[in-house]
């Protein structure tokens, strides 16, 4: 990514003045303020050796899973070219519907006991991106987590990422390797280019960009659209106003050690979120994460890059498929029922009264470029001050 930081830095003093406002509390009076536009915010996929991570290959797609539910003889019969229409009808219509016509993507809960839609193949590798969310080194159950297995991140720390465990061998996630990427991540990031949802990060009170144990970090939604250059990259140094919805403004304390910013835990983080596939657009419009923390490197080029870890309610995680409906299972060839069943089985956070965990640990790739972040109150004051 090409970024010209010079200009942004030159004008940052000016921003610091703008952003001291009721929306930007506490430490901001000292040190510089650095604003960023988030350009990547999508599932972090660790591309380890495929044979190690997924020794049994990819998780079956909907049609493959359907055939697996059949006897070998029936499978062979259905695979004959002359029976192709019959096969199509069976997997696209019968297999993706419940006894009362339930849609496997819209109503995945009704398939929890249906043996035709088993739990997906899980990642067998030991490495994943993520954060240690439960604070344990063995994944034992705690008041806020269910018993689960741990990964180690590339730095060797024990981390939680159950969503990667169940989705890391799915084609829609892992895609065709690091070169081509998973289509889900591509889509999420391309939606930010289309201006469907955009996020900002602001670091305030930075006295030393390499080491500063007291900085304030804001993570915000913005309603402003991002401009792109001719190669569809976000332009640096754009101005964005923080959303007027207080729910989508998150502020947390952080520290910078050797150029790496680590935040304290944000108990609950909401951000606006649009995800349209084929279904009604905007049916779910909010991301919810719990026990969130970021670890981001402030690179020399001015880019902020790293990982966010946290839990997400599985009802939110599965919302994209629910939103898309059956088309996700047929055209998208993802067995939504299996995905959901896997989420229920591997959920590791926030047990309900029966001890069933309702949230799943995950990690998001985060990348952000310099931008001017304005707070609505300050922006109004600034406008009024001009002649």
């Amino acid at each position, binding site marked *: 990514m090409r970024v010209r930081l010079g200009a942004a830095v030159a004008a940052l003093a000016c921003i610091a003045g703008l952003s001291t406002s009721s929306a930007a509390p506490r430490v901001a009076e000292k040190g510089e303020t650095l604003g960023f536009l988030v350009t990547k915010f999508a599932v972090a996929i660790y591309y380890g050796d495929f044979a190690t991570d997924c020794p049994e290959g990819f998780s079956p797609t909907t049609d493959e899973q359907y055939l697996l539910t059949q006897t070998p003889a029936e499978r062979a019969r259905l695979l004959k070219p002359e029976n192709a229409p019959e096969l199509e009808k069976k997997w696209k219509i019968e297999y993706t519907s419940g006894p009362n016509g339930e849609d496997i993507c819209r109503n995945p809960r009704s398939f929890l006991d249906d043996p035709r839609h088993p739990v997906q193949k899980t990642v067998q590798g030991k490495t994943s991106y993520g954060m240690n969310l439960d604070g344990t080194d063995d994944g034992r159950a705690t008041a806020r987590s269910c018993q689960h297995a741990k990964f180690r991140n590339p730095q060797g720390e024990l981390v939680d990422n159950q969503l990667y465990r169940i989705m890391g061998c799915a084609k829609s996630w892992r895609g065709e390797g690091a070169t081509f990427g998973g289509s889900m991540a591509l889509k999420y990031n391309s939606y930010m280019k289309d201006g469907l949802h955009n996020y900002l990060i602001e670091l305030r009170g930075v006295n030393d960009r390499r080491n500063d144990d007291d900085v304030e970090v804001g993570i915000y939604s913005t309603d402003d*659209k991002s401009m792109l250059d001719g190669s569809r990259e976000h332009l640096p140094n754009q101005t964005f106003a923080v959303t007027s919805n207080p729910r989508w403004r998150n502020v947390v304390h952080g520290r910078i050690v050797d150029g790496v910013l680590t935040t304290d835990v944000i108990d609950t983080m909401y951000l606006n979120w649009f995800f349209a596939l084929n279904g009604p657009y905007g049916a779910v419009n909010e991301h919810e994460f719990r026990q969130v923390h970021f670890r981001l490197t402030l690179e020399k080029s001015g880019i902020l890059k790293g990982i966010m870890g946290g839990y997400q309610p599985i009802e939110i995680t599965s919302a994209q498929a629910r939103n898309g409906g059956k088309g996700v299972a047929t055209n998208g060839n993802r067995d939504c029922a299996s995905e959901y069943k896997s989420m229920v089985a591997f959920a590791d956070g926030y047990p309900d009264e029966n001890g069933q965990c309702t949230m799943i640990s995950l990690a998001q790739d985060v990348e952000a470029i310099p931008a001017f972040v304005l707070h609505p109150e300050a922006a109004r004051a600034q406008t009024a001050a001009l002649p």
Partner: protein
Amino acid sequence: MRTFDRRRVLRSLLGGSAISVALPLFDCVLNGNGTALASGAPLPVRFGTWFWGLGVTPGRWKPTKTGKDYDILPELRPIEPFKKKISIFSGFDVLLDGKPNFPHQTGGPGFRTGIAPPALAFPGVSFDVMIADAIGGNTRFRSIELSGIADSTNTLSGRGAGQMNPSESSALAFYTRVFGPDYKDPNAGAFVPDPKIMARKSVLSAVTEQRQELERQLGAADKARLDQYFTSLRQVENQLAMQLQKPEPLLACANPHAPEGFDVGHEVENVVKNHELMAQILAMALACNQTKVFNMHINNSASSLTKRGSTTSHHQLTHDEQIDEKLGYQPVATQFVKDLMDQWGTFVRVLDGVKEGDGTLLDNTLVVAHSDTDFAKVHTVSSLPVMFAGSAGGRVKSGVHIEGKGEPVTRLALTAMQAVGLAQDRFGSGSMETKKPLTEVFA
């Protein structure tokens, strides 16, 4: 200088009978592009679109070089023999302005109407319809819509949701519609001059009558400039006069054979055959002046094409099929792109095979070929693959690759409209509104 006696001509025309009018020859006839008949009367300019769904394969279609010496990658090989007659456009985007990208519903309508659809509906008037309104009036069919797959709703031509032009999807039905019992051989029968053109021509005399009075007031240099003005006026007058004459016989026009009817469905093998037959009938429909505007949709946006013996559609493959690590692309999905581009080559060959005047039917046509996405796997609507074939009767320079670098794709639509003679000075809305055609494309 009056070139001929307007009143004499009109008197003889106003009898209402269909007669041939003898007019003197003029000193400045509009040729220069090798696209006129022997008498100097211009051949009609035709316009068409050729749509295919699901785009191209990254690294296999888009030339790496721009300009005249663009290189041919595997997926463009079918057009290699016609390279000089085809221009490639890459990097022209459908700009969404924050509206959602509805997979398979945004790219095609976005390009055709210049509006990013705010909902799942065709958002406005497509530019082919604007062209048909302007140039398709005095032929039997204002425009003809065709679909290679058996689906009459497979169309990107219309005035908005609910007012779409349905496609003919059977070669036999298409043949019958054009060359069936209602067909009248354009080379036989009487000629009736268009009264509108007569009237347009007649009123110009009021302008020429002012000439002397104007000249009286002017110095020598300005007299020369006024001369130039009247020379230009005379050329237009002559063009109108040409249109009042009985046209030259359409030498390329011949009644094609009726094709056999067959069940097309969505199997690519049938669709290819269907498309070839329709291309041949269409070429004759154009040569016989039955229509001047056409829209061919070989497959649909979310391509439902299948290979014989398989139920997995082209669309599904683009999402599910793994990219072959060695090849770097999805092998089976890519085969569909190859089949579609082969057919694009066939289409161009058929039009170029019809001799007309000093050139070919293709030379007198502008075909805008395009898809609705660059990379189907993720439904991008940036860098739509677009091609211009033919030179619209010498009005378009062809044989170049031009990169848009993120410019709105509507610039190509505006270029096409102006190339075929529309007085359209802008197109599109929001970020896609443009007033700038690609002037480098104009001859």
